[in-house]
């Protein structure tokens, strides 16, 4: 075992982690731990853009952006946090440009902007051009730009280090504070303890609980899982976004930017069905509404294809030059993976599990909450792992790239400020023990269960029972399935017993996190007997503000069971209204 000491340890090197590192590493000794290489993170898969009311191409202001974010989240958004995000969005985009990000440009040489789902002028009048973009690889350019600036600033990375435990220590006044993390080094199998004054979690989401997902293999919710096992809460885990336009059968994402550029969704009859569901903004309605509308078309027999199980994204009326200039990557995905030529043929699409609105609860300073009001000093979270909550029950497109930049920056500043004001906390006794025990157990297990079998069954039952539409019955079924899978997981064994690049071992560890988080998602979903944003209950069709205008807070009990509580929603300017588009 090795021990390292830093002021700030950042876990995760996607957009949020590297944005935080740029703030903290010039003021404090900072280490960034990532289970991949920095440029492999899933921020790089984001396509469409990053919204900010620059008003470069038409009238816009950050208050309209805030309203859209609140309404898009079906009023479960904490409005103080949304205000912070939308106000700071403008500088966040300008900062990236000055760091070198190659945005597309207007004829006047300014950052160009385009339309995106749910982003409107003057509180819903019409779509507005707010998304700043670099072709359809905006996330790639953000990830590259942030990494380039980390290279410039000499940020210290530990690549292929899996953080598997969070360390908490009591302060003199008895309050538990963050004191570091424990990591497993993939190359050597060695366990490393990182003692730190501040810990920033920026580990992303957990889309791999589902089978059909736009998420990378590596998005297994490790950061949320580590926090959960410490008895700290997870917020609003029932709200998972299903992106409307995944490539049918594969889940690979086709950006909403396609519809922003004018593409149209059609059913088997060629009908532009979104006109019925969202008469004003049609195909550019928020994702939850479009995903449900698509699933409904398929359910009512108007799906396309031999099994009538998808709808069609039609780009054939767009000029080829526009497709080539603005949407080159996603049209190539359609060609490569489905053999469809988007110039001349509509592309088969169906909703794909995309984004966790819930996560580790934080305040607007990115400080992690231990309950509804108190923070864990020295512990921060930003990006998809966190729940601020700026996305409420449904995130608007582009607001994730914004979230990682605004709250990644805030987390880095807050973590550095904190580290400069405190002494290095003592490590708990036998700090590495929990990870060492977990690793040893998996390496020596003689059970007969296989990681891939359990993971596959988990993903199947989640797709079948906890996807776009949910009922008490379906949720009860998936909860029972997860309970059985957790029992079988105790018998999981692996064939690679080595220390060197043992990726099988880590897949087994990741499966443990997936099972925990799937259970929290399902238990939280069963408890919310209403339909709101990304959580659609067929047995409770309406939003119920009287009983459920509040955040879910889930806590792991000592016996492993889940206790649920509520947290009030912060409302400042906007009173809940019916959500029509």
């Amino acid at each position, binding site marked *: 075992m090795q021990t390292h000491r830093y002021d700030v340890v950042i876990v995760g090197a996607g957009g949020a982690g590297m944005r935080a590192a740029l703030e903290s590493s010039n003021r404090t000794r900072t280490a960034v731990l990532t289970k991949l290489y920095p*440029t492999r993170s899933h921020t790089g898969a984001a396509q469409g853009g990053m919204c900010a009311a620059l008003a470069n191409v038409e009238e816009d202001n950050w208050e309209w952006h805030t309203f859209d974010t609140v309404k898009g989240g079906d009023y479960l958004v904490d409005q103080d946090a949304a205000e912070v995000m939308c106000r700071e969005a403008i500088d966040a985009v300008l900062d990236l440009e000055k760091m*070198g990000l190659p945005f597309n440009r207007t004829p006047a040489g300014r950052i160009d902007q385009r339309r995106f789902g749910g982003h409107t002028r003057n509180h819903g009048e019409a779509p507005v051009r707010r998304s700043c973009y670099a072709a359809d690889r905006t996330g790639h350019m953000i990830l590259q730009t942030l990494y380039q600036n980390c290279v*410039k600033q000499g940020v210290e990375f530990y690549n292929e280090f899996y953080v598997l435990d969070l360390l908490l220590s009591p302060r003199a006044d008895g309050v538990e504070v963050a004191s570091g993390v424990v990591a497993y080094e993939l190359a050597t199998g060695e366990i490393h303890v990182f003692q730190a004054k501040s810990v920033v979690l920026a580990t992303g989401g957990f889309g791999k609980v589902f089978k059909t997902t736009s998420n990378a293999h590596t998005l297994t919710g490790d950061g949320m899982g580590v926090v959960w096992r410490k008895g700290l809460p997870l917020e609003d885990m029932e709200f998972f976004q299903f992106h409307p336009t995944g490539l*049918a059968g594969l889940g690979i994402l086709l950006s909403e930017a396609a519809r922003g550029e004018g593409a149209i969704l059609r059913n088997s009859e060629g009908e532009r069905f979104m006109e019925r569901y969202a008469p004003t903004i049609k195909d550019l309605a928020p994702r939850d509404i479009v995903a449900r509308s698509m699933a409904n078309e398929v359910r009512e027999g108007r799906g396309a*294809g031999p099994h009538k199980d998808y709808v069609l994204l039609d780009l054939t009326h767009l000029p080829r030059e526009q497709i080539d200039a603005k949407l080159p990557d996603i049209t190539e995905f359609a060609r490569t993976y489905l053999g469809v030529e988007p110039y001349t043929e509509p592309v088969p699409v169906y909703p794909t599990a995309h984004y966790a609105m819930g996560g580790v609860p934080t305040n607007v300073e990115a400080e992690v909450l231990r309950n509804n009001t108190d923070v864990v000093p020295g512990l921060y979270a930003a990006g998809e792992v966190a729940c601020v909550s700026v996305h409420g029950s449904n995130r608007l497109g582009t607001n994730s790239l914004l979230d990682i930049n605004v709250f990644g920056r805030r987390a880095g500043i807050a973590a550095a400020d904190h580290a400069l004001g405190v002494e290095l906390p003592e490590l708990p006794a036998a700090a590495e023990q929990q990870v060492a025990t977990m690793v040893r157990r998996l390496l020596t297990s003689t059970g007969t269960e296989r990681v891939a079998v359990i993971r596959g069954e988990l993903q199947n039952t989640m797709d079948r029972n906890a996807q776009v539409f949910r009922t008490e019955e379906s949720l009860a079924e998936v909860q029972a399935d997860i309970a059985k899978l957790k029992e079988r997981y105790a018998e999981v064994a692996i*064939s690679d017993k080595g220390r060197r690049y043992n990726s099988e071992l880590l897949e087994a560890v990741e499966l443990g996190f997936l099972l925990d988080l799937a259970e929290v998602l399902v238990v939280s979903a069963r408890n919310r007997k209403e339909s709101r944003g990304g959580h659609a209950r067929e047995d409770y069709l309406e939003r119920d503000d009287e009983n459920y205008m509040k955040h879910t807070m889930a806590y792991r009990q000592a016996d492993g069971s889940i206790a649920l509580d509520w947290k009030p929603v912060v409302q400042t300017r906007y009173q809940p209204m019916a959500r029509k588009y």
Partner: protein
Amino acid sequence: MTAVAERPAAVEAPKARTVEVRIRRYNPEISDEVRWVTYQVQAYPTDRVLNLLTKIKDEQDGTLTFRRSCAHGVCGSDAMRINGVNRLACKVLMKDMPAKLTIEPIKGLPVEKDLVVDMEPFFEAYRAVKPFLITGGNPPTKEWLQSQADRDRYDDTTKCILCAACTTSCPVFWTDGSYFGPAAIVNAHRFIFDSRDQGAEERLEILNDREGVWRCRTTFNCTEACPRGIEITKAIKEVKQALLFRRV
């Protein structure tokens, strides 16, 4: 013919076939010997090579080790040599491949285990070319202005995902690991031709080094290997021309 019948991949009743996958295995923790192991896998035309590797790991041999993440060609984790050509395993569809595959790690970087190589020398070369925007004077209040035409000038080289497929397909890199390699030059190009950047002189000086751009023998391996379709040889040529022009 109906419109549906013309849409092949999404609708054809998929037929699986047995594919023989021969993989170069190496784990110095167990033995210094390289082993070639052959696996029989059922493959659908829509399967990617990455799916086959995953099936082998999941169902036949959990010790098989490779890197992967996004699985659709944007993260750059799974560059490998597939039937002698550098490809991303997640971008090669089995409908385009024969029933026998030979898979090896990318060449020219130290092999750590099976298909996993040490990427550090590759990233070291990348860092050496100062791959970041260098500007002087006061920054603007808002954004730096740049015309779309100036933006288009370096568009191609912004696509790089640092997968190393190009660099490890280069015969010069194989024989002399101290050559910067195509990926580093691509990333230098991305800034040299960015109208906002003022670091071109520094970067050109670095690339003028004996391990720099002049080592390129224009074999086009890199351009053929690039999963992002970057015209790498052209970018290298433009950097060479910038050096020559500067000297005139």
